């Protein structure tokens, strides 16, 4: 799904309940690097003109970016699993 820079900023702020704010320079620096690494790409599709701002650029995940996310999710899951089994923490306590 396409998203523009400021939208990403808001999105992250909401999802982390205000804990993580991406400041503009850092955000766009990160976006630039992700484009260079081909994790995201610029999208030509733009919303209806009344919702749009000419200055905005829209980004979407590439196929490769999607794969990287899934791989990353798996990796984190495995990591959590590994830590839990090692510490022999009962699942109930860990989730509660």
């Amino acid at each position, binding site marked *: 799904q396409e998203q523009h820079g*400021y939208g990403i900023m808001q999105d992250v702020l909401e999802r982390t309940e205000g804990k993580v704010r991406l*400041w503009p*320079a*850092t955000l766009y620096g990160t976006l630039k690097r992700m484009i260079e690494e081909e994790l995201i790409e610029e999208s030509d599709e733009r919303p209806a003109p009344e919702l749009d701002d000419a200055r905005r650029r829209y980004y979407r995940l590439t196929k490769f970016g999607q794969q990287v996310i899934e791989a990353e999710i798996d990796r984190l899951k495995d990591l959590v699993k590994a830590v839990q089994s090692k510490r022999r923490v009962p699942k109930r306590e860990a989730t509660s």
Partner: protein
Amino acid sequence: MKTETILRLYRKFTHALPEEFRRRHGPEMTEAAEDLVRYTAKRRTPGALVAVVLRLFADLFWRIPIEHAAEFRQNAHYGARMLTKSPGFTLASVISLGIGIGLTVSTFSQLELMMRPVPQVEDAAALVSINERVSYPDYEYLRDGSGLFKSVAAYMPLVPLVVSKDGEARRFWGHIVSSNYFPVLGTKPLLGRAFLEEDFRADASPVVFMSHRMWENRFGRDPAVVGKAISINGHRAAIAGIGPEDFLGAAPLREAADLWIPTSTAAFMAPEAGRERLHDRKAAAFSIIGRLSDGIRTDEAEAKLDTILRKHDDAPQDPAEIIGRGLFIMPADRLFPVSDDELPILIGLPAGIVGLSLWIACSNVGTLLLARGGPRQKEIAIRLAMGASRSRIIRQLVTESLMLASLGGVVGWLFAVWSNSTMDWLKPMIPDFMHVELRLDWRAFVFAAAVTGISALLFGLAPALQAARRDVVPGLKSGEWFESKRFRWFSSRNLLVLQQVAGSLMLLLITGFVVLGFERTRSLDLGFDPANLHMASIDPVRNGYSVERAQEMLESLPDRMKRIPGIEEATLTHKVPLGLYSDDTAYTVKTSAYDTSMMLTLRIERVGIGFLDTVGVPMLRGRSFQRADESDDARVLIINETMATKTWPGEDPIGRQVEIEGAQHTVVGMTKDFRSGAVLEPPRPGAFLPMKAKDIARPSHQGVTLLVRAKPGVDAAAAIRNEMRAIDPALTVFNVSSLREEVAALMYVMRLATYVYGGIGLFGLILAVVGLGGVTAYSVTLRTREIGIRMALGAQRVDVLRLVLKEGFLLVVAGTVIGHASAWGAMRALGSFFEALTTVTKTSTSDPLLVIGAPVLLAALTMVACYLPARRATRIDPLVSLRQE
């Protein structure tokens, strides 16, 4: 502050971000910042707004260097790819820069060493000395009556002193000094005291001042030794004080001392400084060190000095009667005894040659970068068309140039480290004990790196500046610009090549001349044959022998040696032949010719009977010494050819009179010139005197040297040692060596200089070849289409070859003419040095080997360098080259 002002400021600061980042994300970024600031200003407290604004700016400032570093990384990555894509270009540039920087650094490091001041001396810059030694009465006169010096001291350098400790006797060098020696130098003792006026009274108890080095090596840095007595030449003397670290006297390289004794102590302690010597006006044994009076210039002092001393010495007053005697004031501030007159030679020549090499290296990299800039214009045009900003392209090229320069710097530093460790031509002249370490001169490195870096930068930018001036479309079409392809003499490229060829030739001619000169010096006629000649020194008087016993032993020594199988000849001499710092005792003597008396400086060697036969110095006239000549009342001498031609030109010198130390001597023979000291020196008047009993009683600082000529293959050194042990095992034998080795040591500097200058000349040659080859290659690339058209119209390969080679040839011819002229000018500018070299080596600056050989060699090699790209031009396929349209 209003939110609008804050946002304006924010927008302004985003301009510090790299241009590409700003163009791509700038508007969005500022929009996001605007939304955030406006939202916070409307909905939240002023405190929250301040916090948000601070974080916003912190975020921006944090990001700016990161984004620049990212861009630099990208540029460097791209640059590295470009450099590895043309390895020939990269290698040639890096080697050029590296050798240029390395040569500069290593040369200046060595020059810095030469210019270092004498250690542990106060205000060394003001110290002066006199080139010749003077008598003690002359010194007293200079000190009290001349008004030339603010303060002045005298010392008799290199007096051997045998120090006995725990039953073991060892020789050390000492100075016999006047009372104000330490005050004039301004040297403060580390322990104890310097000499006092009382120490110089005739009835004073003997004292000695010791070097830090001797205190460390012989006395284990024991502070309690101060005030204790040690045995010197069999007499007791109390240690007055210990010198500061590294202090070895006023001239530590030529005359390093470990012990200093007052003239009063020396009077009975050292055979060379008997009390009568202090009053003998003819005994020129003292070196002078002092500081000139305020307002007296060196040349004034020099002019007065000679008059003053002549008046004092009752010498002829008419300067016209004085031949070959010149007194000079020399600066005594430097570790290496370099006079201001010698500076242009010692510093100017290497500095000039290195500067020239650096210049050639720079212009070489310039030509290479320009040559590469041509083909790169297509690439630049593409990047410009793809939306890269011109400033980005410039930054890219700057990055590449800096990478080249840094690689060159690294190579240069390594080169300097290597050359300083292997070609350290000063090392053999520095005694092992001196704490003089060659330091790589970082100032020279910064200078050389800056010069090469800036030129790499300027030339590296040329394609970008050209691209910035023009339309991108033609560049995209064919990779070349439509410009006049006619041969233009004054295009920047041709001028660059021209001065490069000229500079290389100049370098080749000058270094070639020096190399040829040194090379010939090595095969110079020494006046004798060093093969199978061996030497060993003994010093029986300082070893405790009485004069009579020493004389008796020395008299029979040559005959004892000759009885050993394998030894053909044996003789004695007062000094070591060919020593690098051998003490060339000069005497001012009076002679008469045409009924007028003249003075001249004569180098005198006192030798035993059979010296001339043993060493093989050919007699030209008269006879050699006989036993009767050794008696005290016999006064004869044998002179050399130069002395004869200087004093009695065209006449027979036999039977003439020469006044030496006040006594008339008769010339009984004349020999060929005999080279005993420095090699780079024209032959000087010299004479031999027979060695007499008084010479044995007062031996030179090298004792008495035995010279033997052995049959080839005989181990003469072992034979000498065995024989000496048989005579007296207690006798110390030193200076055991062969004359071959001595000659080799003397020639070592020459040989090294030959290699160094030869290497630099070769380097200039390589640079010229690489540079011209690169430019021809570039020119061929530029003219590909023109050549294609010519070939399509029926031009033959040989025509194309001629077309391309003609340009290179014209440049080489013009460069040769300019190079010759400038080399000639440079050699004139360094006239005195080249004059000395030409006189001694009989090498002419118009030597055909140089004048014709050097340009022919250069032209041949550069034409080969032109031929390779020219041949490539003949392979151009007209179809391919024209299709580019």
